[in-house]
């Protein structure tokens, strides 16, 4: 892939808080269009920090981050706002405004291109409103537009967050632990939804997952972080136990492997 095609290019990214150790240490990787990348690693390995650093919610200490060719680390406030509109972020804790309705929360995705006065009077662009209705229907949330977000279940709130991110018409989705508080069935449903949405919309996605089997199943490419560095970058088929041991440690791998093998045994022998 030639450089202009790349959606995201991270080069030598370092994130350090004050005098502490490097949370991210010289990370380099790139993502092309329509790539779904699963980000795995132990807690504290720097996965959330990576997502936040790409958005500059956490300031990179050094290195470069380029979104579709635009250097993000040197942008001023206005430029950064524009760049962020092209990145949709889906948060682990949903990060919805509880007291507002589902529709108002989804329309927050369009705030980047709505003037203050229209936002104040809640008169959004009809194109955005129509898109919002479509997205809610795609998420299976039709009819809930006027409900307050604190009246919804966890899974429903998750989907409102996804709709909000998609309303931005982003090039890249940054997804932070979408399955953190969901049961296995719901987790699979959300991951299926995200995969389908990426294919439908031609988006790339960088998805932070703590569940390795889920990552293997849904992500054609896996990026494993270990202590702030990339320990593995490749297809799930090449993700060996040796790599997993390095990333997660012995006991965790045994547990994962046991689960994986158990599933195989059911279909195999």
């Amino acid at each position: 892939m030639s450089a202009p095609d790349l959606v995201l290019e991270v080069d030598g990214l370092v994130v350090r808080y004050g005098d502490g150790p490097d949370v991210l240490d010289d990370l380099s990787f790139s993502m092309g269009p329509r790539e779904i990348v699963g980000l795995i690693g132990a807690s504290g390995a720097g996965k959330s920090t990576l997502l936040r650093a790409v958005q500059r919610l956490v300031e990179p200490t050094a290195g470069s981050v380029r979104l579709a060719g635009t250097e993000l680390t040197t942008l001023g406030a206005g430029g950064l706002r524009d760049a962020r509109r092209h990145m949709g972020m889906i948060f682990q804790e949903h990060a919805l405004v509880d007291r507002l309705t589902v529709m108002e929360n989804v329309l927050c995705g369009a705030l980047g291109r709505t003037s203050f006065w229209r936002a104040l009077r809640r008169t959004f662009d009809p194109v955005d409103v129509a898109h919002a209705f479509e997205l809610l229907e795609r998420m299976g949330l039709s009819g809930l537009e006027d409900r307050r977000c604190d009246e919804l279940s966890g899974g429903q709130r998750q989907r409102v967050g996804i709709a909000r991110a998609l309303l931005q018409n982003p090039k890249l989705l940054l997804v932070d632990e979408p399955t953190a508080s969901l049961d296995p069935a719901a987790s699979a449903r959300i991951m299926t939804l995200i995969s389908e949405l990426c294919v439908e919309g031609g988006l790339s996605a960088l998805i932070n997952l703590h569940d390795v089997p889920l990552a293997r199943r849904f992500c054609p490419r896996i990026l494993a972080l270990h202590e702030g560095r990339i320990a593995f970058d490749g297809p799930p088929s090449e993700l060996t136990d040796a790599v997993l041991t390095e990333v997660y440690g012995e006991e965790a791998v045994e547990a994962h492997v046991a689960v994986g093998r158990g599933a195989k045994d059911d279909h195999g022998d």
Partner: protein
Amino acid sequence: MLAAFYGVVAAWTVDVDGARIAEGAARAADFFGGWLRPDFMTRWADIREGLVESVAMTVVATAAGFLLSVPFGLGASKNLAPGPIYAACRGALAVFRAFHEILVAILFVAMFGFGGFAGVMTLGVATVGFLGKLLAEAVEEIDPGPLDALTAAGATWACRIMYGVLPQVMPRILGLTLYRLDINFRESAIIGLVGAGGIGATLITAFARYEFESVSAILILIISMLFGAELLSSRLRRRLL
């Protein structure tokens, strides 16, 4: 034990003048006689003017105070405002709250002359200080999640505040504003004593003239209005919050 001993000694040192009390008792009987025969009619024009001015002062001061408290309150929030603005706003709010309303009223009467305007200024300043500080405290306790989400979506600063901050704090602030409305009405009765307009001026005049029947009428009206405001405010709360 020591506290009890101190209590006895302290009581001993209080100057209790029996003769003065006896004299006062007679006068007290006079007052209370007046309470029992409230006279709304004789001074009705003055009473009505005073009440109307009090209500007007209260409403204007509370509304203007609420609007002005928003910029000061946001500016005094550590999680929103940059260093110098934070310091300036916190300082300003501290100054507004530093002095009791009576002292502030005296100051504004000296600056703007007797009447309602000084009263509005006094109550307005007190309202901004009260609501601004409480708003800042509420803002500092918000869930940062929604605000992060709006930042990540590329919303401007103003939109981030409007959607990410205000919905989280407005219910509490509206409740506090209703509370302040009540406080302002009571204050408006008092600051009239130093010439800042309102029913307080009418009250002190009646008192000075020993017209206890009128005093009684005025007090009954003030109490009824406060009860009425209390009922109105609970109803409003249920509707809005």
